């Protein structure tokens, strides 16, 4: 268990801060939105991030990675949250590549991981089918044929699908199974016949699509790892994603909070700074305590990934539920404490508010994670 960053990790965090605040400030997300983009991020930005080594940070050196661990990657995610930097870091590197690393055959890993790390290959995980996160409620079917599978189904929200080179599709390969049993993962070229993609506009200006699969022909080689057995790896990949997203949310919440406290010291009403009003002081102080607890939770969860601790699922749920709640509260309070200007598009606070609500829905809202935590603890 490590709840402080070591020197190398702190250095990495500083580098990330410098790069992101100069190259990818919030104004870049605004520009992306205003350009009517559907790609979800700027390819140049992603290339620069890969060149900094961020796409390979958590992978072993044999694949071209840096083997630097999730505490390091988490520090980067926190910084991306501060500037709302849009990239496929979560969808490709954490979500999809984790799954490949955990479940794919040696040959598949050799083919895919180096390409991901170099930035040549981006992936999107097609999992969700409903209005809320429900990773085992899968109706998409991949029916076995003589030389492969036929894929049918609908995925409701696929992060970064419009820009991804390939999709990783979760489907039920055992018709008689339900829940987490009988699920498999397939690597699918997003251009093949039978796939319809509707990329949608989201409040946070990031990208996610609805995808429909109609009699899509897959070969046996498209199966990642073994048939019917993807759940344990998927579960871990999701936990890693929840934790990294929580780190991003922490960065967003801290940034939004700091901007708000600065405003409390700047804005005058009734002949004094609004930050002198106790009604606002106490609310700000409470947010501060919440953020301090949130920092501890995120750090411990990141180190649980690195240390392969058995309580990873609890920590992931703890971190995600907490950051959902804290980010929501901080962004709502930030808007209120700014007064009229808080609800204008001109002020960047609104971007944090919008990102917070999207991030909350991804990989489980707080109710989902409290229920999961309670179940894991036996009650």
């Amino acid at each position, binding site marked *: 268990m490590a709840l402080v960053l070591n020197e190398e990790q702190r250095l990495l965090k500083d580098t990330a801060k410098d790069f992101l605040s100069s190259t990818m400030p919030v104004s870049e997300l605004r520009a992306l939105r205003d350009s009517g983009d559907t790609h979800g991020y700027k390819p140049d930005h992603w290339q620069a991030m890969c060149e900094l080594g961020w796409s390979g940070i958590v992978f072993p050196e044999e694949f071209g990675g840096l083997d630097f661990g999730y505490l390091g990657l988490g520090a980067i995610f926190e910084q991306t949250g501060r500037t709302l930097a849009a990239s496929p870091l979560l969808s490709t590197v954490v979500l999809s590549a984790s799954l490949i690393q955990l479940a794919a055959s040696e040959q598949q890993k050799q083919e895919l991981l180096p390409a991901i790390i170099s930035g040549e290959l981006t992936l999107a995980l097609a999992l969700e089918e409903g209005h809320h996160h429900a990773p085992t409620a899968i109706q998409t079917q991949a029916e076995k044929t003589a030389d492969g599978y036929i894929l049918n189904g609908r995925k409701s929200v696929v992060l970064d699908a419009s820009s991804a080179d390939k999709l990783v599709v979760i489907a039920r390969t055992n018709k008689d199974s339900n829940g987490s049993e009988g699920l498999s993962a397939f690597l699918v070229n997003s251009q093949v016949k039978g796939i319809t993609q509707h990329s949608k506009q989201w409040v946070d200006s990031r990208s996610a699509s609805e995808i429909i699969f109609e009699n899509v022909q897959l070969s046996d080689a498209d199966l990642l790892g073994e048939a019917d057995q993807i759940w344990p790896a998927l579960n871990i990949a999701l936990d890693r994603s929840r934790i990294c997203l929580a780190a991003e949310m922490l960065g967003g919440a801290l940034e939004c909070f700091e901007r708000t406290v600065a405003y*409390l010291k700047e804005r005058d009403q009734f002949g004094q700074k609004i930050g002198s009003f106790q009604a606002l002081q106490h609310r700000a*102080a409470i947010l*501060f305590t919440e953020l301090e607890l949130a920092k501890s939770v995120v750090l411990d969860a990141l180190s649980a990934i690195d240390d392969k601790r058995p309580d990873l699922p609890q920590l992931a749920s703890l971190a995600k539920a907490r950051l959902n709640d804290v980010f929501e509260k901080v962004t709502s309070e930030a808007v209120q404490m700014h007064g009229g200007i808080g609800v204008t598009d001109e002020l960047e606070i609104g971007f944090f508010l919008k990102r917070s609500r999207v991030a909350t829905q991804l990989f489980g809202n707080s109710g989902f994670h409290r229920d999961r935590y309670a179940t894991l603890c036996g009650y």
Partner: protein
Amino acid sequence: MNSADAFRQEVRTWLEENCPPSQRRPIVREEQVWAGRNKTFPNNDAKLWFERMRDRGWTVPDWPQALGGGGLDEQQTRILKEEMKALGCRTPLYDLGIWMLGPAVLEFGTEAQQHEHIPKIARGEIRWCQGYSEPGAGSDLASLQTRAEDCGDHFLVNGTKIWTTNADKADWIFCLVRTDPAAKKQEGISFLLIDMNDPGVTTTPIELISGESEFCQTFFDNVKVPKGNLIGELNKGWSVAKALLKHERKLMSEIGGDTPGPSFGPVQAALEYIGLGEDGKLKDLALRDQLVRHEMNFRAIGLTHFRSFEERMHGLADPNVPLIMKYVGTEETKNKDELLVALLGHQALGWGGAGFNDDEILTTRGWLFSKALSIAGGTSEVQLNIIAKRALELPEHNAQA
């Protein structure tokens, strides 16, 4: 094996050999060993355990050995606490001298004062109480009025203190008194030690909602106090008081400590008093949600304590983390006690007599007592004021504006 591991091993072995089994059961109020001139022990095991710990200096493990302490560094102290917790060892000695006065005397006292008071605290020979609050001075402590008049070779003390916990049982009291009525409020205050046996000191108990009367009002009527009992400089008592409050708040922030309470925690209580349905979930889903919120919050607080410790160990201490812990810890404990009452239902609402077991009564009393936690040692509102000012550096309010 590094030196920390070796120390841990040594501590574990020693505790296993020296802590009697009866002293490894959860503490109940009647069996706490409090310091005092006329110390009593509930039983021989408690006496033995106290004496063994005292002889190692482990009643106050991080104080200097020459003054009766254990001479341990911060990490070793933590290891000792962790090992005691792991074995369930009881705190061998209770006293405000250990928690509050001792650290202040070590920081501000003269060598003579340290040799006079510190060993007695370490050995549990004197029981201390705290005379800060007054009927007119609570949160606004610096407005206190108890007077100490300079009479050449002694001070003459007149006034009254209130909410003095255990004043009727204490041997000595550490007090904030006004020594310069003309100065600005914080600047005319001194820190004085007073023997409760001195003529003119009297106490009357105050009954609490939990049914106990831990509190007293303490009166000083022409009490003569030797000059040597002044800690720190004359009229500089406010700095001593503030340093001591920091220790008090740290103590109060250490949630789940060894204050007496029921033998079960919320999860166990939930399983026992509500039970699981066929789906493996607690039958009352609304309470299940409250329970899991509490458990998750509790874990986050524990992790924050640990983070703060690790940061100090790495020389990266964030001075703002300790600021929040009193507020967070006491609010959490209140929340836990409300939850326990809800989980036990009717069984947590008895006052005594047949029909309620000890744990149930302790739940009720503990819940009522927990209400004091966010008042004593600086109220939650006052803590939030401090966070706003120190951590967030928000401006003072100007009522005239």
